[in-house]
């Protein structure tokens, strides 16, 4: 299929341009997103195209902004609230957890909340403890939310477009390291439904499950492993909720070994839950225990050497793969 090479942030912008043109009920609020175009330039140009009614800067009021987005969604609009760092979403957790996630159930399914929170997380090279977190597990834990973590420009575009066409609250978590990365984005309409994993690299010896910024790192590891004679399959769930369990189980049934890579801290993470799903449903397909490569249980330190130590690196992934293959590789 024909396509173009776009940066992750350009692909997101393209999704916003297309969807706002299609649906008048979409509007965006956030800090510095209008004239300035956002800290990561995702919303650049939208103000000129769609005007100040639909593209608005806000004061620094995360709880209020998220609440307003949720209320607007309940009242039939399709709001996007941009939260500069996922760390700042913590200020609005009541609105996410107690309001957005629960309204559909609390109304017996009569009310819906088509609300999208766009934000970004992860380590970014010295931005320290309050601007570096990977907090997807907090949202993953709350029934009623959708958790989306695209790793490529094409996925970012297709998933954001789908987010704006479905009716549940979406935590759309980008990664600060990915905005400038490039990738092929197919021409024409691109919609990626939630709950469909993507195999980023096919392989036969081991399944590597990763998402967001751990995908490029895991792909590098897979490339190096190939040079060592190990064929690694890299699976990106793309959405953690809903999770494509079938794709995971199918891949594990093929490779019989699995390593899960997450940037977030190890304790109480999504990787642990995926691991438990695999051991419950594919135990007899496994030739080795599932390994998790995750962040240390620590706030992210400012010091770059320590920051690097805090989150999984390529060599950690390779070591884990060697460990699950210990009885296979000479």
């Amino acid at each position, binding site marked *: 299929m024909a396509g173009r090479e776009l940066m992750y942030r350009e692909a997101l912008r393209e999704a916003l341009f297309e969807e706002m043109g299609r649906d008048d009920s979409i509007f965006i609020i956030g800090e510095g997103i209008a004239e300035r175009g956002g800290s990561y330039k995702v919303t650049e140009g939208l103000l000129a195209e769609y005007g100040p009614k639909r593209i608005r800067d806000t004061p620094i009021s995360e709880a*209020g902004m998220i609440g307003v987005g949720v*209320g607007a969604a*309940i009242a039939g609009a399709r709001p996007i609230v941009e939260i500069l760092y996922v760390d700042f979403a913590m200020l609005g957790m009541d609105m996410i957890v107690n*309001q957005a996630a629960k309204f559909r159930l609390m109304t017996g399914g009569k009310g819906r909340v088509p609300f999208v929170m766009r934000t970004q997380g992860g380590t970014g090279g010295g931005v320290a403890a309050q601007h570096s977190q990977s907090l997807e597990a907090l949202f993953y834990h709350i029934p009623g939310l959708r958790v989306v973590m695209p790793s490529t420009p094409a996925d970012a575009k297709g998933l954001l477009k789908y987010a704006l066409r479905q009716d549940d609250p979406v935590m759309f978590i980008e990664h600060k390291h990915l905005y400038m990365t490039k990738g092929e984005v197919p021409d024409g309409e691109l919609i990626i439904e939630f709950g469909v994993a993507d195999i980023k690299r096919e392989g036969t010896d081991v399944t590597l499950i990763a998402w967001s910024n751990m995908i490029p790192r895991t792909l590098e590891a897979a490339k190096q492993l190939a040079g060592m004679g190990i064929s690694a399959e890299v699976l990106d769930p793309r959405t953690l909720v809903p999770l494509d369990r079938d794709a995971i189980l199918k891949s594990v049934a093929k490779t019989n070994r699995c390593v899960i890579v997450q940037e977030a801290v190890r304790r109480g993470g999504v990787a642990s839950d995926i691991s438990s799903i695999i051991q419950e449903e594919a135990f007899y397909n496994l030739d080795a225990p599932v390994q998790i490569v995750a962040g240390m249980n620590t706030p992210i330190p400012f010091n770059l050497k320590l920051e690097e130590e805090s989150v999984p690196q390529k060599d950690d992934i390779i070591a884990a793969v060697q460990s699950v293959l210990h009885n296979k590789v000479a």
Partner: protein
Amino acid sequence: MAYNKKENAPSKELLEKLFTTAFRIRNFESEGIKLYRRGLIRGYFHPYLGQEGIASGACAALEDRDYIASTHRGHGHCIAQGATIEGMVAELLQKETGYCKGYGGSMHIADITKNNLGANGIVGASTPLGVGAAMANQVRGSDAVTVSFSTDGATNNGTFLESLNLAAIWDLNFILIVENNQYAVSTTLAEATRETELYKRGEAIGVESHRIDGNDPLLVYETVVDAVKKCRAGLGPILIEAVTFRHSGHHVNDPGKYMPEDKIKYYKDRDPVDRARDNLINMGKMSAKDVKAIEAEIEAEFEAAVKAAEAAGEVTVEEFREFVADY
């Protein structure tokens, strides 16, 4: 800020509506408490007894296209916004015929077809949610107004300032009614804040703000009519502090011993339902007999709703599992 009643005499039709709504709420709460004590209603039940004048007056000033957001003490708002007693009783009795099919209960009750964003178990949540509805309406070019009912307790929550400020900078058609019943559960307003005249908080961020007697349904109505007019003319948002008092504790199982007897008496002497009835008889010239007939009809409506709810089924476990399968 003083607020003068309109010079034009209110119509009998309006006075009848104010009384009917206030009495319907009064009856729902009084009879609901009996069902609660019989064990038919479970969970929490926060009665609106004593505050009926606010919901009755405010919702009478709204059109069908307007929105409301409510609180944990939300039965009154739901009724005043046009919900049926049958759907509400069924909800409190956990039946599938209830407004939320028994998934929400007292604290989350909502007839969303009446543009009601629902009761809410989180104190303060109605303000940002209501501002959101106001924003949705502004974006789609509607002149609909959103009224958020809130509480004195909620004014010490951060979202009060954050969201009212957003409504102000965006000139939203938003009316915040702070029902000042002078208690956050058992904590008095004076313990919770140094400045107990809460409308001043609106003024501090450039929002037109009023303080009125919330136990006067007609005054509430007239104040909200004015606020709605101003909003539709682009002069919103507006804050209305409506001073009132509960007749009892925070919820059914709270005896409210911390509430001074003389203060309860003071407010019961200014009971909003009695005032609505007196207005209907004195200003509306309705006979006491006709008023009694209205009351009897409302009482019968509740009894029929209980019968219907008792006969209704509940959502099955299978239906529940299917409903949340994609969660």
